[in-house]
């Protein structure tokens, strides 16, 4: 990465034997530097930080006058609370458990979120938008970040307010003490839908599903490559493939949530080892 060229304020000229000098307010001479608009960290910045720290302390002390740290009854391995809630910042992952098996929702997906966040600076090749807030100059990057975190926060809100006994869906006006009848919702793998609709054998339907699943990733990889060449060229093959794997997985999670909530689809792909 090339450094920004240092702007020479008073360019030296071989023909001239004199240099430029400027008079300005200050207590010390500044040599070979432009007159700058700087202030001393002490007390200007230090005071802001001190005030900030005091305000945070005051806000916290005020808050704990009204809200207290919870303490339930003594841990009891024989009594499982219902519903059992994770701390709020993990509720998104707990909610995702409704849509995916634990190996994915609890292990692979969190791992992908962490790695996905880490690789962001390496796949974002847009040089614009450093040092100021902008949406128009980097729409796609902002979209990706917002989409990911919308998923994270929406699932947290669902997990906090819309889940009740047995982790069933409870509206704010539903009776929170009555168990929902789980038989009301029948979850089916996608291939069963095909079996019923198209009257094909189970194995053929499973084949369909595998094609749909792989096709989603294959087409997802291909379409921007074919039709948005500029986007591809700006990244290069390595960055493009890395980014698209994460991008398509993120979109896939959202898609699966919609399929599960609206059409009661439990799995897209069923294999003897893993189901997705």
């Amino acid at each position, binding site marked *: 990465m090339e450094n920004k060229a240092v702007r020479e304020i008073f360019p030296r000229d071989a023909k001239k034997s004199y240099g430029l000098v400027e008079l300005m307010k200050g207590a010390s001479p500044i040599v070979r530097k432009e007159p700058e608009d700087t202030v001393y960290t002490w007390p200007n910045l230090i005071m802001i930080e001190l005030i*900030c720290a005091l305000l945070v302390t005051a806000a916290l002390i005020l808050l704990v006058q009204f809200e207290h740290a919870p303490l339930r*009854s*003594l*841990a009891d391995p024989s009594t499982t609370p219902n519903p059992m809630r994770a701390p709020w910042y993990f509720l998104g992952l707990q909610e995702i458990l409704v849509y995916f098996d*634990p190996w994915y929702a609890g292990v692979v997906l969190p791992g992908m979120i962490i790695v996905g966040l880490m690789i962001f600076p390496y796949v974002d090749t847009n040089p614009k938008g*450093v040092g*100021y807030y902008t949406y128009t100059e980097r729409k796609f990057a902002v979209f990706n970040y917002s989409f990911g975190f919308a998923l994270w926060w929406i699932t947290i809100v669902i997990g906090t307010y819309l889940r009740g006994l047995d982790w069933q869906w409870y509206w704010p006006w539903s009776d929170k003490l009555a168990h929902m009848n789980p038989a009301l919702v029948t979850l089916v793998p996608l291939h069963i839908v095909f079996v019923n609709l198209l009257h094909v054998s189970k194995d053929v339907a499973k084949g369909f599903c595998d094609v749909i699943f792989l096709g989603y990733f294959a087409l997802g990889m291909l379409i921007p490559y074919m039709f948005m060449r500029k986007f591809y060229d700006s990244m290069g093959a390595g960055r493009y493939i890395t980014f698209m794997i994460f991008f398509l997985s993120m979109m896939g999670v959202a898609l699966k949530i919609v399929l599960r909530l609206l059409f009661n689809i439990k799995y897209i792909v069923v294999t003897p080892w893993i189901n997705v």
Partner: protein
Amino acid sequence: MLEKMKEKVVQTQLFKSVFRHGYPDNELNQAYVVFSNIFLHIHPVKVRRTALRMRYTFCLGGITLFLFIMLAVTGIWLMFYYTPYTGLAYKNIKDIQFVIFGGNLMRDLHRFAAHGMVLFVWLHMTRVFLTGAYKAPREFNWVVGVVLLVNTLILSWTGYLLPWDQLAYWAVTVGTKMASYTPFIGQNGPWGAQLGVNPTNDLMFMMIGGTVVGQNALIRFYVLHCVVLPLVVTVFLAVHFWRIRKDGFSGPL
């Protein structure tokens, strides 16, 4: 009169030995105060006037650091009254709540500062993202930041177990159960059983030191929460700040 007293104090050997420079009311000493102080030298001596504007960083990273310091202080205070033993932990918390002077305040502060730290890490990350501050040459500092985010979450979660109440016990039971679904190294995970992984040798067993959350899990989480993770966070924080100074500030500084 005050001016004279100040002059006297500043001239003493004691003051000079501690601060090595005069009172920071002139530019020379204002520079000295920042770079001769181990805590303040994290700052540059001078900053651009525009950097003082709050609307760029909103102090989010600074607040996160401050909450971490607050958590360390209240956390150490709580450690004096807490025993990581299943037979005592819950009673200790009750004592902190009802018997020990200031106990409730310290525990509440610790709890809410922890929530706050998770929230502010996220807000800070969002700010950094929206201002493009993670772009070259600052890519790696973003990665360090993600490591700090993950550590913050794990710190918060390991602390969750310590009160040894129903909330703690079951949140951690469910959380560690997830580890048993890890592919290849979890007893319930895909290809786990095929590889000979069982309840006594999988990832969950390693995390909680047994097949169920018990005394071993409590002591593990306690050591992680009070010693290991804060040290890890401190090291990564040092790297994080060091690199901000080395790579330069992204904004109008």
